[in-house]
């Protein structure tokens, strides 16, 4: 296979990681909403943790982006 083509295919494949991150972020906010509906008084207290979880999960997506960028520009 042409190395340039393999590079592009690899960078494309790296975006599959987004599936897991999508599940993760959906899970965080879904759990938050269902928890907040059960106990609205506790919702503001956990919102900081929700944002922290969101940022940590989003960072996983960016690791995939990093792999894609490395494949495209470094090799």
């Amino acid at each position, binding site marked *: 296979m042409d190395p340039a083509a393999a590079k592009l295919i690899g960078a494309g494949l790296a975006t599959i990681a987004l599936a897991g991150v999508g599940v993760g972020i959906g899970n965080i906010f879904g759990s938050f909403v269902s928890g907040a509906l059960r106990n609205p008084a506790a919702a503001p207290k956990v919102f900081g943790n929700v944002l*922290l979880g969101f*940022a*940590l999960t989003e960072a996983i997506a*960016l690791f995939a982006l990093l792999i894609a960028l490395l494949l495209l*520009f470094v090799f």
Partner: protein
Amino acid sequence: MAEAAHSPLEQFKIARLFEIHVGGVDVSFTNSALFMVIAIAAITAFLLIATRQRALVPTRLQSMAELSYEFIANMIRDNVGTAGMKYFPFIFSLFMFILFCNLIGMIPFTFTVTSHIIVTFTMALVVFVGVTIIGFARHGLHFLKFFVPPGVPMALLPMLVVIEVLSYLIRPVSLSVRLFANMTAGHTMLKVFGGFVVMLGILGGWAPLAFVVALTGLEVLIAVLQAYVFTILTCIYLNDAVHMHH
């Protein structure tokens, strides 16, 4: 790349403003250094001007300074406890520096210092080495117990210790890559959508333009959030070193 001039990654290029060479080492004053100086000057000016009057009933500016102080002080108290308050100056400086670098980067035609992995990795390494030294200074060799999870069967222990040590060593990498990748990805995405506006012209460009406006709002949120995440993870690591809780 042939068309590097139009690449969305062009905005991250480091340019030398003044060439300085000391003994064969290139210590030129770059645009990255310039924006670090600007960030420090902005923080200093903000805090000095805000606390100049020291009124009992604070003005709006003084409230902002007090809010930022209390935000970090509460974060340390909640995550580390009062034992962590003596590290407040370092953590406050870290938070303000990352916050101002991220926010100054959101102004068009500026340079985002935190979009370079060497900057974020240096900060993460300072945190990592500092926290490890604090751990050993407070607990001596007992700090090594941190890598041995309690209540685990002897057979599993060798593997778990290796995993614990690896997960400890990977902290500076994940801490720095998180901030760097967020900044790089956000600014690249804005540039790519900005390119769509130009390509689609005056008739079709409105849709991506609206998207760019929304994305800019998201990026400001991300800029603040990542400064918060970096700081709170520093607090959590500090708590591990001070209290050795799992």
